[in-house]
């Protein structure tokens, strides 16, 4: 079902009692890609999405207006020692509620995981306070799918796609990085078109990435995957539909999904297979809210791991002012990377690696995020340096912890009467040590090109939300197996970043897409074998 220009809602393509369909909940990197791939393979797919079906021309080149258009603003609560809990207590995560999910506001960085990042636990042994576990798969299992993902996403520097050109902000970061001796300095592997490709045009360097790409140069499931799925005639997209419960039969197999449609009516869609891809916080919430007498602690939660091991990367930002103008806001926001610190070198005082990545904010968001709650003349004078400012983002591996978790807050309910998620995060000492190292590295880069002042910016509400339904070889250690299939429920899959056993340093979207493609092959093979 898609909304027509005349406002008519056409009838659903597949009937509510059609128990032959695959229901995918969530249309972002995982769900949108999986839905398309399954449609291409001949399956009938109902794609349930809580957000609206905006088109690129509707996106807004204004940070606050765009946030209100695209962000998931459903109520959430927070607890723990992380700085978000204090600065942005109702907005722990910056993800999207829209067809296309968070791919809509994604800047496009596509590093692959490294071989050792799939097995941090065996690389380092146990680490106090960390619930580390090796992935049940390794890089070699994922490599063919990385190849496939990079091709369909049009990642620069792969498949003969030209590198992005250096923009103003990158000239500052890149030269600074060279001067301090970093070698892995480039404009990066990015999922936006530097030349027209796959029916989408090249970037016009308009500088608005987090607000949705009006040009459609960026890969997103909204502009690349879902239109292709619709062409097969086998996709039934239902926007503005909020899944609230997954149902099962007496044998413990799932039978369908209950959701609230755009008119506020309760609907029930039958399903042969259900795939959950609601981003780590809502995926855990939906499984927990689907508790029943057979699954008293939540669906697929016999391990007690649903909602636990929530990861959001070690992040932070460094901005710096210079004597001469930079105009960091012009051009592709994140087209620049320094990879040297992504190595594994415990000699630095922490395990795991991190990247320095190009990054800018417009004036409205910079004022809010540069130093949350700061005010006064000094702050105003810093803001007056805006066009002389350069910026970078820091992103690295964080430690999974058993008690960093999504739980249901039974004291607070949403408009559908469902308990809202509480997100609890305490920083791990490894995270703190890495962040400090990364801040110092970022500052040294800017000092090397004569920054007049540098600023350590605390983590924003994060867009990388991982680990709340992790993969494990053994059912007692996690929620899903190597294909994202629930250990407890044979026809239930998790298809987003929730499945990541550990988070690596890389931005997760490329890996989420690769995992979704691998899962689609598995589902196809299992359907053919009569096992689903």
């Amino acid at each position: 079902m898609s909304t027509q220009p005349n406002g008519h809602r056409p009838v659903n393509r597949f009937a509510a009692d059609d128990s032959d369909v695959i229901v995918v909940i969530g249309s972002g990197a995982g769900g949108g890609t999986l839905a398309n791939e399954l449609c291409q393979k001949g399956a009938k797919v109902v794609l349930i999405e809580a957000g609206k079906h905006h088109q690129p021309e509707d996106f807004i080149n204004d940070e606050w207006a765009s946030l209100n258009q695209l962000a998931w603003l459903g109520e959430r609560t927070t607890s723990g020692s992380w700085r978000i809990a204090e600065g942005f207590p109702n907005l722990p995560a910056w993800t999207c509620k829209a067809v296309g999910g968070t791919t809509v506001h994604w800047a496009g960085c596509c590093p692959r995981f490294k071989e050792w990042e799939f097995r941090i636990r065996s690389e380092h042994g146990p680490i106090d306070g960390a619930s580390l576990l090796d992935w049940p798969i390794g890089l070699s299992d994922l490599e063919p799918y990385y190849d496939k993902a990079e091709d369909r996403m049009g990642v620069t520097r792969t498949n003969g796609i030209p590198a992005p050109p250096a923009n103003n902000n990158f000239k500052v970061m890149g030269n600074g990085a060279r001067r301090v001796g970093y070698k892995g300095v480039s404009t990066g592997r990015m999922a936006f078109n530097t030349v027209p490709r796959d029916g989408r045009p090249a970037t016009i360097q308009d500088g608005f990435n987090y607000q949705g790409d009006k040009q459609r140069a960026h890969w997103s499931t909204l502009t690349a995957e879902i239109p292709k799925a619709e062409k097969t005639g086998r996709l039934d997209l239902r926007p503005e539909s909020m899944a609230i419960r997954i149902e099962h039969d007496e044998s413990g197999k799932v039978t369908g999904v209950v959701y609230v449609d755009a008119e506020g009516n309760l609907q029930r869609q039958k399903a042969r297979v259900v795939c959950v891809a609601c981003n780590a916080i809502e995926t855990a919430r939906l499984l927990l809210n689907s508790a029943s007498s057979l699954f008293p602690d939540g669906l697929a939660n016999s391990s007690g791991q649903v909602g636990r091991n929530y990861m959001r990367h070690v992040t932070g930002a460094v901005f710096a002012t210079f004597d001469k103008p930079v105009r960091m806001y012009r051009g592709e926001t994140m087209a620049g990377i320094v990879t040297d610190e992504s190595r594994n070198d415990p000699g630095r005082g922490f395990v795991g690696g991190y990247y320095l990545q190009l990054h800018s904010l417009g004036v409205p968001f910079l004022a809010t995020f540069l130093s949350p709650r700061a005010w006064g003349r000094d702050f105003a004078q810093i803001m007056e340096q805006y066009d002389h400012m350069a910026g970078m983002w820091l992103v690295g591996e964080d430690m999974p912890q058993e008690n960093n978790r999504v739980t249901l807050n039974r004291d607070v309910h949403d408009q559908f009467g469902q308990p809202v998620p509480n997100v609890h995060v305490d920083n791990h000492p490894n995270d703190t040590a890495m962040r400090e190292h990364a801040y110092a590295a970022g500052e040294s880069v800017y000092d090397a090109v004569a920054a007049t002042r540098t600023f350590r910016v605390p983590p924003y509400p994060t867009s990388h939300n991982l680990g709340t339904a992790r993969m494990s070889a053994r059912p007692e250690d996690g929620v899903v197996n190597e294909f994202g299939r629930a250990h407890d429920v044979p026809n239930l899959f998790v298809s987003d970043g929730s499945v990541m056993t550990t988070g690596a340093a890389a931005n997760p979207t490329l890996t989420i897409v690769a995992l979704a493609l691998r899962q689609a092959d598995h589902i196809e093979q299992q359907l053919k074998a009569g096992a689903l």
Partner: protein
Amino acid sequence: MYPHDALPDDVYARVGEKLAEAAREDSSAARTIEDGVSALNGGRPFTELSADEQLETLKGIEGSDFFELVRSTTVVEVYSDQRTWQLVGYEGPSFGKGGYINRGFDDLDWLPDPEAAS
């Protein structure tokens, strides 16, 4: 709270309008503002204080609900105003102007292209 001497007073007056709007829409915000303003004027009226005294008074209430409501409203309003953007050198929406591909996305000339320089 966010003083830019070059900005017209109207930029700041809009913050007051926004707060009045918040008070009309939300009775708890209205109470916070009412209580906060009367506390501010508890001694000599706030508007009769010198700039330094006003600053000290604000520091004294930093972190209170009233202060945070006013501060968070001010930071959003002042830095979303196009007059502020012009002052600090931000060009705002760009898509309608063709982005920056032909308008200087790479016009920084005081450093070389870092990849070419390697």
